[in-house]
């Protein structure tokens, strides 16, 4: 008999209640139960960073958490980054403009990682950006476009702040 629990998790502002097996990883919960397949699963042991989500505003690898551990918590996935269906977040726009993605497999993890990083460090150096994404593997871009996108996004986000102030 499997060990099951009912959990309630807020994902991108929407509450989801499901009964799950306690051994289910959070990554599989998001993809298979909630059917938000933007969060990608690469290595399933915490190396590739593709499954990175924001848990209460802090990045975490969703393959290294159990779904039951997210009970009562707030999660943001890549689907929650854009402000609406027609507009991109400045970081996403910077990725598009700077060739920050090719196949797109690592992109959800890159974006969530950089959302937190640019919040912690709004004016990063190139070296700091490279260090920030050192836990995210990309096999297409050679990282140059991603680094350029992150630095560009930092500028755009700062401009937005000034304009909004």
């Amino acid at each position, binding site marked *: 008999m499997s060990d099951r629990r009912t959990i309630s998790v807020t994902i991108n502002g929407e509450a989801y209640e499901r009964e799950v097996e306690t051994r289910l990883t959070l990554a599989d919960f998001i993809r298979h139960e909630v059917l938000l397949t933007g969060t990608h699963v690469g290595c399933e042991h915490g190396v590739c960073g593709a499954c990175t989500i924001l848990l209460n505003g802090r990045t975490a690898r969703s393959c*290294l958490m159990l779904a039951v551990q997210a009970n009562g918590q707030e999660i943001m996935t890549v689907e929650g980054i854009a402000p609406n269906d027609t507009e991109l977040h400045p970081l996403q726009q910077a990725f598009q403009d700077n060739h920050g993605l090719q196949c797109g497999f690592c992109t959800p993890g890159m974006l969530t990682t950089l959302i937190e990083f640019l919040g912690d460090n709004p004016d990063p150096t190139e070296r700091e950006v490279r260090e920030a994404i050192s836990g995210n593997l990309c096999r297409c871009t050679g990282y140059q476009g991603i680094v350029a996108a992150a630095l560009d996004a930092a500028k755009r986000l700062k401009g937005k702040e000034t304009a909004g102030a």
Partner: protein
Amino acid sequence: MKPPPFTYHDPRSVEDAVALLAEKDNAKLLAGGQSLMPMLNMRFVLPDDVIDINLIDGLADIRDDGDALVFGGMTRQRDIEYSDLVAQRCPLMKEAILNVGHRQTRNRGTYGGSMSHLDPSAELPSVSMAQDAVVTVQKKGGIRDIAMADFPMGYMMPSFELDEMVTSIRVPLWPEGHGYSFVEFARRHGDFAITSSAVLLDVEAGGRIKRASITVGGVGPSPLRVTAVEEGLTGEIGSVELFTEIAEKCREIDAMEDVYAPAWYRQHLASVLTRRALGKAFSRAANGTEMTLR
């Protein structure tokens, strides 16, 4: 690749957690999960019971105890990274923590978890060894302290029993103005280091070394204090020549060998990294002098 079936428990107190540990034969504690979860996903461990200690209150504080900092076992690595107390009073730990995995893993990973997993090149056990930390473990009906010198029993094997859990780590502090340095060599930033060196120096006026603590990680089965280097430094005046010569003693350490690096390479790294760390630590000490060692 999925975790094997187990029964999940989420106790709300240390007492409940250790009662479960005492009762269950094949149980694992789940702290930050940055080592246990991969092992579960790959089915390297097959526990019947997983005891999640994330919902226990009061296990994640960093407390100033005057001559020591006391960390709750569930203190997240991120909270160490961003702690002003750690940066001011225990700068070696601050420097080391930036080498622990990545932001995503530091957000979850814990001090107690890192100590219990005891990877030979993990940074927090090395810093704990360098600072002569004391680990407090609790089991049903008993609490005891384990000095860091007695904490590792072997490769990834801490000396506490299966029914005990790490509840706090007491890290004695060095005097204000002490020199410190943590350097490591890894293939990529955030990877497990092949070798690391942690150095603490208490330097008196005139550059005379009153006390030295030298720890190398990734060379032996657990972090090692290099007493031969410590003794060779004590009472001496720090200089490029002294540090260059004394760091060579690291080549005599009995080093492990694996697919990543042969023993001689680890001994070589231990000597080079210790030399650099000594130079950096001495430069940072209030009574030291600026020097660069390559």
